[in-house]
């Protein structure tokens, strides 16, 4: 039934708690006892508190989910759980690559910055899956790279976006239909009410478009999140692809939106995407074995990207 909570502090808190209780999809994976959370935060709420105070309590409660896809939106602020990336080294500085590797001489289109490194290695930094490119745009880019020996796709600091854009890019690197992963959604309000994993597939780009069959290295950091995390998960299953950098930020939940009686919006993970082996990627995708590496501050100070240098050496070692 639609909620009949009062539009006061207690009613809004209870509405938020119930919504998460009945619709959030990662309680078990995160070992969160949501009833215990209620007992912890409910005493902090009373109807004489201000909206700002209520927002703080509700935000703190949502942070217990440790989920970057969980937000509370009020007219004065939106809550974020940031520890999924803030507790880790950033491992990326765009300026270093733009200045010291390309001397600011690179091409940009949409969220793509791209160029060819002196080692004849193609490089793309894809900043956000919110912005996609048309098939023709990608054809131009891959055509430009046609003589390069390998391709580096840098999705560090890519916070995600549309899964459709993931498919648009992945289909350039496959020559047959692949199992991309599975989707699992909640089927009811119980914490363990889930559907059977539904497999979904990606097919190769149609004939007449450029595809890429040479080696590919994907660069990652903790801020590689959500759809970008999904991109890394799928790419890592391809034989010609290696992942270099740090474990991605995760965010495999498909966020859905809801609201409270006072009009504040809620966003949280309602469905889960699993990788092609049926494993959860909410906690991130690990780099290829032996390819986990952080930025060295000394390198950065001298204009070097430790992870990019590692990737270049990695590619050269295989040729």
């Amino acid at each position: 039934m639609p909620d009949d909570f009062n539009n006061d502090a207690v009613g809004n808190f209870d509405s938020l708690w119930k919504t998460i209780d009945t619709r959030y999809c990662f309680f078990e994976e995160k070992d969160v006892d949501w009833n215990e959370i209620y007992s912890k935060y409910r005493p902090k709420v009373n109807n004489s508190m201000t909206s700002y105070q209520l927002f703080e309590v509700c935000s703190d409660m949502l942070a217990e989910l440790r989920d970057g896809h969980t937000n509370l939106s009020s007219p004065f602020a939106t809550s974020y759980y940031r520890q999924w990336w803030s507790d880790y080294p950033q491992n990326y500085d765009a300026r270093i690559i733009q200045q010291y590797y390309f001397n600011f001489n690179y091409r940009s289109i949409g969220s793509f910055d791209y160029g060819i490194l002196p080692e004849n290695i193609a490089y793309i930094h894809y900043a956000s899956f919110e912005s996609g490119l048309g098939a023709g745009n990608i054809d131009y880019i891959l055509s430009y790279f046609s003589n390069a020996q390998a391709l580096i796709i840098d999705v560090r600091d890519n916070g995600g976006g549309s899964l459709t854009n993931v498919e648009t890019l992945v289909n350039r690197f496959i020559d047959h239909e692949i199992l991309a992963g599975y989707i699992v959604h909640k089927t009811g309000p119980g914490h363990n009410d889930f559907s059977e994993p539904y497999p979904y597939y990606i097919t190769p780009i149609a004939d007449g478009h450029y595809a890429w069959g040479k080696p590919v290295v994907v660069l990652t950091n903790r801020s590689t999140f959500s759809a970008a995390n999904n991109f890394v998960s799928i790419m890592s299953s391809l034989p010609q692809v290696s992942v270099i950098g740090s474990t991605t930020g995760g965010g495999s939940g498909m966020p859905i939106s809801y609201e409270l009686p006072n009009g504040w919006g809620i966003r949280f993970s309602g469905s889960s995407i699993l990788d092609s082996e049926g494993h959860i990627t909410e906690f991130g995708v690990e780099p290829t074995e032996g390819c986990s590496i952080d930025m060295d501050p000394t390198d950065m100070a001298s204009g070097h990207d430790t992870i990019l240098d590692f990737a270049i050496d990695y590619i050269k070692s295989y040729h």
Partner: protein
Amino acid sequence: MKFPLHIVSRLIISAIIMLTSTNSIMAQTESDSTVLRPVWSAYTLSSGSSHIADTYLSPIKYAGWTVGFGYNRLQSMKFSPERWIMQLRFNLDASCSKNQAKNTDIWYAGINFSWGMMYRWKLPYGLSAGVGGSAMIDLGCLYLSRNGNNPASAKAAATLNATGYITYKTHLWSLPITLRYQPTLPVIGAFFSPDYNELYYEIFLGNRSGLAHCAWFGNFFRLDNLLTADLNFGNTSLRIGYSANFHSTKVNDIVTHNYTHCAIVGISGEWISLNPNKRISPAAKIISATF
């Protein structure tokens, strides 16, 4: 009911503009036929209040306005024109409702089509009544712009309905008036609903399981009430009325409500389409869809 020929000739002019009824009636009202079955049609506009809830989109109830256009057509059946009539109804509806915080709108647009037959009786004191059934297709969509991956909730239902009517013909001073009430109640059918937290993205990827549900009173309730008064000013009547429609579903732990109350205004009339190149047989009998 028999019309004098001069009235019939005036009706011909009216019939020309009734494009929706022309083709089907032409074949049935040829001059050598012994039975003429005029079409009784109504075109209406409606406006009123809307109360919406859909827990797939929000746990909050919404309230606002709704507008609609309706077409309603009655005609005696060919096989037993005195006793059986058919009814075709078509409705377009749109609504906009706000949450209780007044900071978000939910929009609805829908179309509804039904065809049915009713057995009728002429009763004393200007009363007549009918009961029967209809088949209905209802399509629509709710849209809540603030939502990201779940901004819309599609509506689709095909149902078999029980329906009936009662009419009362009277006069307001010297003005002929026909009062009519018709409820419609779906009894069984099928309807669409996504699963509890299932995103349309997953459906578009191909997961079609569990989307179609058998509709019965336990999970699908709909009651459409239509009360009208046709004020007869000649060949055409002014229709005023009131509709109250109650629609709710409960499946996959998703609850939906769509309640509307509307005032109605429009025109109605009984039209007949004749071939001017053929004479009407003196034996022709006109059997109206309304006694």
